[in-house]
């Protein structure tokens, strides 16, 4: 057992997209796409994931930058979280994303970590991270869902052999904003809705997104749908920095005359994917923005939650955060 020290691997640092895609084709499952490296390096240092080749994408200029387009904005997947957080247009029109980006990890990590990397990061279940041969690691057991398991950070919804949750602060926001994820491989390009980009264990237990090994997430398109809406984001973590959410909530609302006209809301930290709270949207749409509406929303949000041994607290936490989103936006 070697702790906290990487094995050797081949490191490629292509500057052109086609070279990166060719490398991914060449190495297939033995290749590893690395963006800011904040997730990757932990895996390597613990020698739990040991790719033959690491393809560092940070030298590819076209994967970076924030552009205003006709229907909103396009953000290169490798734009750093700091740039996202500080961008005037994002702050002005899509403040929800800026707020969420600012709550990711620590300033140092945000300076290196990217929006695409943050959204596509792997599960933080400590058993999985510690190298337990669990379902997600290709084995046939979940170690986090046993009578003795320490599963305070795990799922309330959608457990399917695996009980890990999405740890991303930006993923629920991308779902709320109706983002489109542009994915490229040597065979071409496809565009996937954010809500379909993230996948649960029922679809594929070994990954968190639809990305195939030979594909690269190139761009995140944010449509104008929610531009200028009233936003709410809150992340509850044990610490105020450098910590993952126990539960987070993100919402966008348009209010007309005290009545919720349009709403989009999702939670992080409660399911393997950002939990899009469609029932909440249906309940509150057309209702007055009031404590009563917030109460109903909170109750509806947690209906069907199945806590594990150590995460009962996520039920009131999620309920309260949804209430706050509805009443305080």
């Amino acid at each position: 057992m070697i702790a906290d020290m990487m094995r050797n691997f081949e490191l490629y640092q292509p500057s052109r997209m086609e070279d990166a895609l060719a490398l991914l084709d060449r190495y297939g499952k033995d290749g590893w796409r690395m963006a800011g490296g904040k997730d990757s390096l932990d895996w390597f240092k613990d020698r739990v994931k040991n790719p033959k080749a690491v393809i560092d994408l940070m030298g590819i200029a076209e994967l970076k930058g924030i552009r205003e387009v006709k229907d909103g904005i396009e953000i290169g997947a490798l734009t750093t979280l700091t740039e996202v957080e500080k961008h005037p247009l994002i702050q002005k029109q899509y403040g929800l994303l800026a707020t969420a980006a600012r709550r990711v990890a620590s300033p140092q990590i945000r300076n290196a970590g990217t929006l695409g990397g943050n959204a596509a990061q792997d599960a933080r279940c400590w058993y999985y991270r510690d190298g337990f041969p669990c379902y997600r690691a290709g084995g046939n057991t979940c170690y986090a869902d046993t009578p003795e398991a320490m599963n305070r950070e795990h799922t309330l919804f959608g457990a399917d052999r695996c009980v890990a949750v999405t740890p991303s602060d930006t993923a629920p926001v991308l779902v709320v904003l109706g983002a489109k994820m542009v994915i490229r491989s040597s065979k071409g390009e496809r565009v996937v809705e954010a809500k379909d980009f993230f996948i649960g264990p029922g679809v594929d237990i070994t990954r968190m997104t639809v990305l195939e090994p030979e594909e690269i997430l190139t761009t995140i398109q944010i449509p104008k749908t929610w531009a200028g809406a009233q936003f709410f984001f809150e992340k509850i973590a044990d610490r105020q920095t450098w910590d993952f959410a126990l539960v987070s909530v993100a919402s966008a609302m348009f209010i007309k005359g005290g009545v919720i006209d349009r709403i989009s809301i999702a939670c992080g930290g409660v399911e393997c994917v950002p939990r899009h709270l469609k029932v909440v949207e249906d309940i509150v749409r057309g209702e007055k923005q009031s404590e009563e509406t917030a109460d109903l929303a909170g109750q509806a949000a947690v209906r069907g939650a199945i806590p594990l041994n150590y995460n009962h607290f996520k039920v009131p936490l999620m309920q309260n955060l949804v209430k706050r989103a509805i009443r305080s936006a």
Partner: protein
Amino acid sequence: MSYKLIGKNFTPPDVAAKVTGKAKYSEDFRAEGMLFCKLLLSPMPHARVRNIDASEALKMEGVVGIMTADDVPKFPDPANPILTNEPLYVGEPILAVAAINESIAADAVEKIKVDLQPLPFVTDPLTSLYPGGPDARTNGNVANARLKLQTIKWTAKDFAKAGEGKLPMGKPAEEWSYGDLEAGFKDAKVVLDETFVTAGYPHHSQEPRSAMAYWQNGKCYLHGSTQSGTFNYPFLAKFIGIKPQQLVLIAENCGGGFGSKGGAYPVMVIPALMSKKVGRPVMMRINRGEEYYVGFGRPGFQGRVKMGFREDGRITAVDLYIVHDNGPNQGFWDFRNAGTAMSIVYQPLAMRWRGISVLTNTPPRTAQRGPGENQTAAAIEPIVDKAARQLGLDRLAIRRINAPDNTGKIWSGKGLGPLTSAYLKDALDKGAAAFNWMEKKKLSGQKKGNKVIGVGIGQAYHSAGAAGFDGLVRIMPDGKLHIHSGVGNLGTYSYAGTSRVVAEVLDSKWENCVIERGDSRKGLPWNLGQFGSNTSFTMTRSNHAAAVDAKNKLLEIASKDMGGGPDDYKLDNERVVHKSDSSKSMTFGQAAKRAIELGGKYSGKELPKDLNPITKGSAAMIAGTGLIGVAKDNLPKTATTPALSAAFVQIEVDLETGKLEILDYLGVADCGTVIHPQSLHHQILGGAIMGLGMACMERYVYDTKYGRAASRGFHQQKPPSYLDLPKKMDGIAVNLPDSQNPIGSKGIGEPVMGSAASALLCAISDALGGHLFNRTPVLPDMILLAASGMKPSNKPLQVHTQ
């Protein structure tokens, strides 16, 4: 008393190097032909090594050698071993491999086939005490540094009698008592019986314990990370198997230890032994992942206390039982310190303490800031508040009436003993005034939306000084005053503050002082290590002794050369001057030259007989180079010297999320005369931040089925971050002198953490209308569940849980 230097701020000499990155730590050193070694860590919580097949590793190009437990000195159980053939926790070093670079060494470690036979293991002390429960070691389940390894099992009846949620109290390993306990409880108006758990957690020193060593001409040169100095020598020498005189320890800077690098620890000598074996210098870089395992942790408690309170709040009787999670080895005596701390902080009229130190297959434990005292503060202070509520008393008043003053007593091992000074009442009063307690307490329970205010007071104790160590100073012909400090440098700068006593006694300018430290070759005296909040007291005494010796020698030399007796001379501005004839004077430099010429005791050629051999050897190194002042601290020490502190805090708890914000914090230190105000302020604030970690964040988390840790790195362990800190913090001191220190000083480092932790826990309880968690840490989920009227996830006695 007024001083020129004591009580004034100054910049310690190592600050600039630290803030510019120029300071060198163990890992920064290189030697010609240096190899790197990596450790093979146990993947199992308890196992026996049946066979080691290193053939493939040894065939690798660049691999130079392997060292196993069979190659290194062994010490009687339950000592911390250097390497082991019976790993007792996941992450315990089994063997080391040396190679020309670290990456080859690591790859070689992975090629070694270790055949491990899994053995029963245990992570919960109570599980081990239950009849038929597993033992952490094959040869016992109860032990401590000062308690022999043995097997103790309680009866099933002990457990059944206690019932669910109450600590069973079977046969203790140790106990003591004084006074009439039964009468005390009979006289009490309120009697509380509470069961509590305080979590153990790792030290997580910022600088992992990397070390580098090589051998030259029969001497072992060791660069290591340690809080302490010469106190290490005999212990490290024993680990290496040499005489202390054969060891050269270079340890100028320490990147944090918090107790885990207080005394010598075996891992540090692995490169020394490897270097001896392979005949080349060896560097062992310990990384963050490894530091979690080998870097020690604080023992956890499962405890129970019965406390009787009179109508006026006076504590009539205390019956305390501590089940102490000692890790697998020698551990530390936190459980004993719990009893001592109770006896001094609350001065109970009668008291019984019982304790048992149980072994678990979790990382080894050692002292962490306030070992036992701070867990006790965290556990007991909220219970005192509960009594205050039931009696309708102010929480300041209930503390004041029990707090020790100079007539206070402490359990001394045989009976109640006296104190050299105690100003806890003064600390409470001064703090209450500065914090405006009487006004702030009116805010208790005030709600604004979903947020509620809580206020709390905390107190804590640690012993704060020892006696009998040596001082060594030297005045050079160039007039400079060299202060030889063997205490170490754990990062508090107290090595520098306590050195100023010498300049004070000799009336020297601080700019003309040089502190010699951090390297055996400089000639350092025998000093106690930098642990146990003792430095301010112990080092000022020994430095004072050496300074007085130097002063006497200066006066003697002057009288020899210029006539009259020593008493006719005085020191003035780095000169020895005749009291009535100022034309008769000599500079310190001239006196130093004369000392060299005179030889004998003046130049250190003759030494006092009562010096420690290490001081004698060091003095011999510098003998003949100047005027040597050297002496053992023989000042009276007839009582326990306590460091005491009080803390006041105001918080705001979000009832919808369980998160809290610290709005205002004040720490108050009873540390005797303040030596260095700025450094004291840092101690009070730093201690408070560490206390926040203890109260609300940090803990070992273990899966009991696999014995594997869920909270290894910084990010999982979650020590407080910058953004978790109080919005407003301050620290003040009572600043009244101790009776048995020449400048009235005593230590403070440890209790300022415990008082902060306990104040915070009291404030949380206050915000929740008196709800007691009886557990540390109190995490947001626990607060939220309590605020939502839901049951906690943890069972009352559960340990190592999330």
